[in-house]
């Protein structure tokens, strides 16, 4: 199944054997292939962390930026060229911690981009400190008495901010993950997909088995259009974690709301001519 994927890339992966990132990578390549995308049409943006190395391991355009700053360049890219499929792959620390402010406001901005958060509930690259999604009591080299802070709930936060596509999946269920990925990419607007991705080295609590035992698929008749029900779902965790599309609502994406752009070519295709700007000097006479 993983053979002959257009998005294959020969670069040697610096992830640990058994790391959940490997399966996640295969999943996104499969999803993009199945959606009929070609490498040059896709940009993978990321911040810094283990997850954020993904752009190096996929044949596509990539922008591997700064820690916590995965979203803003992706937004700039999409504004410049809406013809590109822009996806983000970054960690839970990168997305919800260092980059928390961008996360909040880009849900509001609703750019047509897809954000895949590799949620291993830990800081992998920096060797095992608590992340915003680490559970209370989780002991690390820094949180020596266990995590005290309340965990960040990305699903509830995104729903409360009016995010148009909020989903959760587990990389251990490839089929589920790929279906969610495809739906997220197809969604017009900012889509958040929180993906459980075991870190086999630094998170000994939320292991592959732990996720497997804890997740359950949303019921067949679950209605992702019901905001209040979705919010309720988003609060479930300790007694079973729902995976699937938790909330979906179609809102016009950012660029669609700028009426004067609707008839125009993408910014990247504009013919630039200084003379066009001359009329803006009139206001100074």
């Amino acid at each position: 199944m993983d053979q002959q994927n257009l998005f294959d890339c020969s670069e040697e992966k610096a992830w640990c054997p058994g790391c959940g990132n490997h399966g996640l990578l295969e999943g996104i390549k499969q999803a993009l292939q199945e959606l009929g995308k070609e490498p040059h049409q896709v940009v993978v943006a990321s911040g810094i962390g283990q997850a954020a190395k993904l752009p190096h391991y996929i044949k596509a355009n990539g922008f591997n930026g700064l820690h916590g700053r995965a979203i803003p360049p992706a937004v700039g890219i999409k504004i410049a060229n809406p013809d590109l499929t822009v996806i983000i792959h970054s960690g839970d620390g990168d997305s919800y911690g260092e980059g928390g402010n961008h996360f909040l406001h880009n849900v509001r901005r609703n750019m047509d981009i897809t954000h895949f958060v590799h949620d291993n509930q830990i800081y992998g690259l920096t060797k095992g400190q608590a992340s915003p999604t680490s559970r209370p009591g989780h002991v690390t080299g820094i949180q020596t008495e266990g995590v005290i802070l309340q965990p960040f709930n990305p699903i509830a936060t995104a729903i409360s901010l009016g995010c148009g596509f909020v989903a959760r999946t587990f990389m251990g269920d490839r089929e589920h993950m790929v279906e969610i990925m495809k739906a997220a990419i197809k969604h017009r607007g900012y889509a958040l997909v929180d993906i459980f991705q075991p870190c086999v080295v630094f998170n000994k609590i939320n292991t592959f088995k732990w996720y497997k035992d804890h997740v359950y698929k949303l019921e067949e008749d679950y209605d992702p259009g019901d905001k209040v029900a979705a919010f309720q779902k988003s609060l479930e965790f300790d007694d079973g974690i729902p995976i699937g599309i938790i909330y979906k609502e179609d809102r016009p994406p950012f660029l669609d709301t700028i009426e004067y752009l609707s008839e125009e070519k993408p910014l990247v295709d504009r013919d630039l001519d200084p003379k066009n700007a001359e009329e803006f000097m009139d206001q100074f006479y």
Partner: protein
Amino acid sequence: MDFNLLIGGSAGQGIDTLGTLLEKVLQRSSYYLFTNKDYMSRIRGGHNFNQIRFGSKPIYSHKNALDAIVAFDETTVTEHLSRLKEGGKILLDESLKDEIDVSEDQVVYLPLKEGAKEVGNPKVFSVVFLGALIKALDLDLKIGKKILEKTFKEKLLEVNHKALIKGFEMDLNSWDLKKPENTDQRIMINSNEAIALGALAAGVTFYSAYPMTPSTSIMEFLAANQKKARIVVEQAEDEIAAINMAIGASYAGIRAMTGTSGGGFSLMAEALGLAGITETPLVVANVQRPGPATGFPTRTEQSDLSFILTASHGEISRMVTVMRTPEEAFYKTARAFNISEKYQTLVILMNDQYLADANQTIKPFDFSKIQIDRYIAGEEDLPKGDYQRYRFTEDGISPRIIPGKIPGKTVLADSDEHDENGNITESAEVRIKMMDKRMNKMKALAEEVEEPWFIGKENPEILLVGWGSTYGTLRETVEILQEEGHSIGALSFGDLYPLPTKVLKEKVQGAKKIINVEQNYTGQFAKLIRQETGIAFDHSILKYDGRQIALEELIESVKEVL
């Protein structure tokens, strides 16, 4: 002829309305003008003032000595009376008569409030004042009317019209002012607006920023015109987002820009390095205000230079240039985009509150002088096989393509140290080659920078050295001191880094005394010069009270060290 007028009052009283309208009337009357603003960081109350200096020849700076004070309150009189020239006049409302303690022949009391009331709207006070000033300055009432027609509509126009005439008909003498001979059409613009217009001319289609005085007017101008220009101006969630969005947009192939003031620039520091290592062209404006931290939000200083020169950890190439006039702001902004794309590097535009808020009347910009050079590679420029974003080439510049435009070619940009493909590397050898490639751009930039402007006659004994917004004041200081018989000249720098040194070395050689003039505490530009050339200054004139050095102050300071 050179007339200097101050309009003062508290925030919200209408001094800006009067100032703006009067400036326009003077512009339309073919006067040259230079205006500057001194305002407090508050929306109501306090003490603010605008100074309008106008005359029949170009004016490049403000000065202290006042010919007239237009007072909205008594504070304006007490604050500025000492600057009123002999024979100068204070104009104010008659209701303030009992509160002002000045000799009768210095004051002209006017029934302004009364006039506004008679017209039927106390809010038109400023326009009654305008009418009176049009009379006092011997200007054409018709021009005043025209300006009102452009500013107000319908009912509001009607009442303002009446107010204007009310003021104009007041009983007061006119100054005998020389009329301008040169009636060429001019624009009146400040340097922030000129930066914004330069950016539009250069083909900027995306501007992302977070509001911060005194940089916001760049964003405001672009936003006001975004619909017509079909561009995107986005208020980011913070400055970190603003610069990262601009970097993403530039990576994707458009001309993007961001701008801020010191505090926001501090937040951008990490991303400057991102632009550097990813070799993404980027133009960033920093409009300075006094720091550190929040400092003086609405005042002026030149204290970000040392920081800007090295902002970001690690080492990157950059060009730093500062504005001296609105003309320069326009043309240099456009140039910045060409240079940033030619060398795939960072260009930082500096300005400060003084120039950002100073309206000047100048020759209209010549858009035919602007060239857009993108330096973007096409498929034919590339070797076969996978595209390498950071390919080593003879001239050190890797061909840059636009992601998505060439099937089969993908672009990987990376903030880690990387190999030619853009993939993460830990190789010492590659690191050295990549550092050399990126830092070598400084050599090319050194060829691009322009020498400073020299003011004065050949080989002066005393050489003043300044940069940016002090240009006009340096120029006039030299002219006045030369007339007094001093052998004096000045260098005013625009391009700062890489530092152009040719003219500097020449002029320093012939001079007996060299003095740096800067609006900061530590003499940041003198430090740069010493670092780059070994030249040390004999004296420094440094001002860091948040107020721009005035002509008289500079002359006095120079005389002290002569």
